[in-house]
Structures are given as C-alpha cells and as structure tokens.
C-alpha cells in the first residue's frame, strides 16, 4: 500500500515535471532551415513519365525555430522548385520573419500552387506544449 502510494507520487512528479518542462523550457533547434532537396535523376524520371511529388503542397514553418525554407537542387537540370527557378547544385534559402500564410506559384505541383504557413514562435505555456507535441508526432 505504501509502495503504491510512493509510486503514485513519483509518477505524478514525473508527469507534472514533464509537462512543466515541455510547456516552459525554451525550444531550440540546431538549424533554422527546413530543407527540401531535388534528388539526382529527377528530370530523367519525369521525362520518363514518372509522377514525382518532391515538395509537399503545404509547408509549415515556425518563427524562431524553423523559419528558413531551404530548397536544394541536386539534379543535373534546372528546376522550378517552390517559388523560384533553382539551378543545378544551387540552394535557395528563403527566410520568413512574420507569422503568415504565403501562396507561391509552383510548377512542381499539379495545381501550380505551394502554400507556406508560418506559425508564430511558440510562447511559454500552452503554445510551447502544443509545438512540442506536434514536433514529436511529426518526427514519429
């Protein structure tokens, strides 16, 4: 009975501590870039009739965490990738400084549209908790 009570106390401390950490601890990431790459051979595969969808229709960024969209062309041919034409071996880095929803013309998609949603920097508390949860579920 006593052991069960102790276990409950330890679990409660862990849960509250974990939630407190997730809600309050500053979020930090190694790089602010969210990178998407055009693999080598993409243009040949497209010419062969393969339907390739390299870039998602909606990209989600977070201010202060991942707020630089980086698009790299590893192919031998130039590509319209996201909002611009990128030459072979070139990387295009587009920083975002305000929370916003941006629509770009993108011929890489069938509907010709790319949407970049930029979320505000997660503030301590519920926002930060939610951001951590989303990051964790996206990783898994």
């Amino acid at each position, binding site marked *: 009975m006593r052991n069960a009570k102790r276990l409950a106390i330890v679990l409660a401390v862990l849960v509250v501590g974990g939630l407190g950490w997730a809600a*309050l601890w500053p979020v930090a990431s190694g790089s602010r870039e969210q990178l998407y790459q055009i693999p080598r051979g993409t243009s040949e595969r497209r010419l062969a009739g393969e339907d390739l969808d390299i870039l998602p229709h909606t990209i989600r960024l977070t201010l202060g965490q991942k707020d630089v969209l980086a698009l790299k062309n590893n192919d031998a041919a130039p590509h319209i990738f996201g909002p611009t034409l990128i030459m072979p071996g070139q990387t295009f880095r587009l920083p975002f400084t305000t929370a916003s929803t941006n629509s770009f013309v993108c011929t890489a998609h069938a509907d010709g549209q790319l949407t970049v949603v930029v979320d505000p920097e997660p503030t301590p508390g519920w926002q930060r908790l939610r951001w951590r949860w989303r990051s964790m579920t996206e990783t898994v």
Partner: protein
Amino acid sequence: MTATRSIFLPLGILFLLTAVAILFVPGRQAPFAADSIPSGPMKAGTFDPPQTAPDFSLPASDGSEVTLSRYRGKVVLLTFGFTYCAAVCPTTMSTLAQARAKLGKAADDVQVIFVTVDPARDDSASMQTYLAAFDPTFVGATGKPEILAKVREKYGVTAVKQGTGTDYAMAHTSSIFLIDRSGKLRAMMPFGHDAADFVHDVRILLDA
C-alpha cells in the same frame, strides 16, 4: 499531511529548477551559418552559390535597348508585370520607388527594370508614362511575345492570361529579382516586403 508534503516538496523543487533554467535561455542562433552568405542574412531569398543572371536585349521604354550588361556596376531590381495590373504591380513599383528615395545618394547605383508580361498592351511609350509616375529612372522593357516568354522562362517566371476581350488580366509571378553589381543573380524578394527590406538588402549588395 505527510503524504501531501511529500508531493509538494519535489514538485516545488521541479518548478524551481525549471524557472532557474528559463533564466539561462541560450542566445538565439543566426538563421544562416556564418560562412554560407558572407554578406550577412538578407530579407530576400538567396541563391547559393549565385550565378550570372540571364541577360536579355529588349526594346526599352526610353527608346533604347535594355540589357542587364548595360547596368554592370549597379544593383538591378528586376521585376515582371503589366501596366494594366490593378494591385500587385502598382504596389511593387511604389515600394521600389520608396526604397530608392530612402537610399538617398546610393540610389544612383540602383536600377529598376520592369519587364512586361503583356506586350499586346504595353508598348514603350505607355510603359514610359506608367513608370515615370513612380520614378523617372525606372526602365521598362517590352518586345515580341515569344522573346519575352523566353526571358520569363530563364527566370522561372510565369504569366497566364485571365479573361477575354480587352479587359483581361495577367496572373504572373510577382517576385523581384536582386542582381548585384557584377551581374550575379543574388536573391529573390517575394511580393509583400516593404521598402525597408529592399533598402536593407540593396545596401548589402552595394557594399559587397
């Protein structure tokens, strides 16, 4: 009572530790690695490594021939649009005019080139009148539709006619390309940035 105390004590310590940790927030990292863009982070999207901007030769609004090579030594702000554009193009032109005004003397080294996507309606004379309303130094470029289409293709710019009759519109790429003094395509500013962002980036390119 003892059980309650035994819960609150570790919880209190945990919150105290968390609060202390928050006080030691690590400094925010720069959005780019220091060696990635030597001139510092720009507001526009940047090309790495930068390559020579595709050149063109088109009839200019001032009656001459406009080429990029003509403006070597200057920073060129290149944009595509049409004079009948209701919202995007006037906003862009107005923003670029404001940016030049804010740059003061340095604006002498900045050239705005406006390439039409609607040559059927935009001839040299009408472009000259349109652009002069924003800034008399702005240069327009027009030409044959197929030649203009090739120029757009080199920059990944799209332009699609919308509507019929004389009252049609052109849906087009609204970004502005930033070309440095040596003719390298360094960056692309999406539509929506204010004059201060252009001033910031142009100064970087002028000082490079």
